[in-house]
């Protein structure tokens, strides 16, 4: 064999060797749990499981806020999440300690919040699901000032609480 042919064989051999080394390095660098269930890193499932909870549940709020709980759970708003209006649990409590005060909505903010769900003008809302009102029609019909905010008549946690109590007193509605 000529020297030239030998050189070429050496080139081919070195290419094969490089590919082999590359393959070994590749195998070494693949994360451990990769391929356990499929072509992905199985530990990523655990990591996703460990993600910090930001929302609790209503029950996690009621543990401390028992007074609000008794009202909230008796009214039509019992299905509303505390955290939607007040903010997430994790912004308020960390490791069992209160870390910050969640803001409480006031005045017009409350009306805006109520109309998010209860605005009749948004035609898409089924009457089977939710009772809606038109503003200011509703205020006019109820003979109150147009500047009234919703929570002046409706308790935000149990919207018919005051109204039912008033009706009981005036005898407009039978006592349940």
């Amino acid at each position, binding site marked *: 064999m*000529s*020297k*030239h*042919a030998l*050189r*070429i064989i*050496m*080139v081919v051999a070195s*290419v094969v060797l490089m590919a082999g080394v590359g393959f070994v390095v*590749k195998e070494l*660098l*693949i*994360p451990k749990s*990769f391929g356990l269930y499929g*072509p*992905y890193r199985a530990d990523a499932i655990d990591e996703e499981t460990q993600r910090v909870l930001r929302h609790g549940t209503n029950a996690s709020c009621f543990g401390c806020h028992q007074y609000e709980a008794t009202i909230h759970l008796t009214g039509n708003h019992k299905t509303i999440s505390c955290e939607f209006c007040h903010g997430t649990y994790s912004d308020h409590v960390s490791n069992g300690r209160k870390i910050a005060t969640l803001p409480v909505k006031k005045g017009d903010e409350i009306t805006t919040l109520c109309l998010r769900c209860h605005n009749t003008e948004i035609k898409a809302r089924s009457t089977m699901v939710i009772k809606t009102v038109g503003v200011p029609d509703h205020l006019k019909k109820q003979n109150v000032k147009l500047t009234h905010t919703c929570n002046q008549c409706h308790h935000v946690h149990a919207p018919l609480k005051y109204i039912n109590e008033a009706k009981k007193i005036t005898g407009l509605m039978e006592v349940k």
Partner: protein
Amino acid sequence: MNPTLYEASQNLSHGASMLISNYVFPNDLHVHWSMMIVLYPYITGLVDGAFIIAALYYLFDVKSLKPIARFSLLFAFAFLCCATLPLLLHLGRPERNFNMLLTPSPSSAMAGFGYIYAVSMGVLSFIVLFVYRPDLVERGKNAKGFMKLIYRALTFDSADLSEKALALDGKIIRFLVGLGIPVAAVLHGYVGFIFGGVKANPTWSTPLMPVIFLFSACVSGISAIIIAYIIIRKIGGRSVDSDCIRTCIKTLTVFFILAFSFEMLEVFSHSYLKTGYHHMVEGLLNGPLASSFWLWQVKICSVVPLILLGCMAFITLKDSIYTFIAGIVSCILLLQVFIMRWNVVIGGQLMSKSARGYTVFHTEWFDKEGIVAVIIIMLIPFMILFVLGKIFPFWAEERKGGIQ
């Protein structure tokens, strides 16, 4: 609502009723694949086309291509070196690019890129080294010190220029070029398949996509070689081989007719089949892409070159005029392929998957994927080519020995 978007949707003829709200899914407002992903298939396309020219000479013995065969190899190599740059700039986490090699997902069309690229790079490098071995041996003899070492490495430390050794080289070159054709076809056809395999996008998901990409790649590569050849020769004050140009133009004509036919076939079958998403494709081509597709890609950059190529084929022209028109046609076709890539990549993403509206794409100048970055990336291969020219002589007649 964005007024231009609204007008665009109003301009649609029929099929417009579903579009009137011009609703774009909230996550669809942003165009994720922008100019870098236009550039990437463009660059691999240039590599592919240039390689085809070299293959025609080294494998299929088209003798008239001899003057540019070696230059095409270097040209392909210079651009292949930069093919990954746009991808790296595009990636959100470029530092993790080796994940593609470490854990390529067997189900993904994109996962093969690292390996296909590595193989084509290896094949092309060895073709260049074997083709240039006689020159490198000659130059190595006169070199001193560090340069001598480089020449020794590039010639595999074999100064053997005997007829037997050169015959062996010839065989290896033919083998590598034969291997290089499928590798180049896969490298670029697969780029087309990356788009063709996205069923969520009605303009992309067609089996024609890899074919269109492959043929338009050949068009862009051959055009680029013609222009580069003419310009570099004229600057150097040397003659342009007219026979070579004529062969290139003939090859270019064949590939361009194929590319353009398939591009039009895709549009035609969309409008004939009228599938559920037809209104979106039609609205796209007649709305946001009305000028970039119909005016620029089809009328200016396809019909005009077709007429010119027809004239060049049927009318006997003087060599100087022929060369001049060849240069013009090649320039237009380079633009055509770029606009086609733009219309496919960015145009395709303008359609929201809501099938009810189109988003808009804003070009940036100084973004990571902006126009300046595009220009810089397109300049790098020419710098590489300039440096390569110092070691590897471009033109065949400057060579003293060798059998090619």
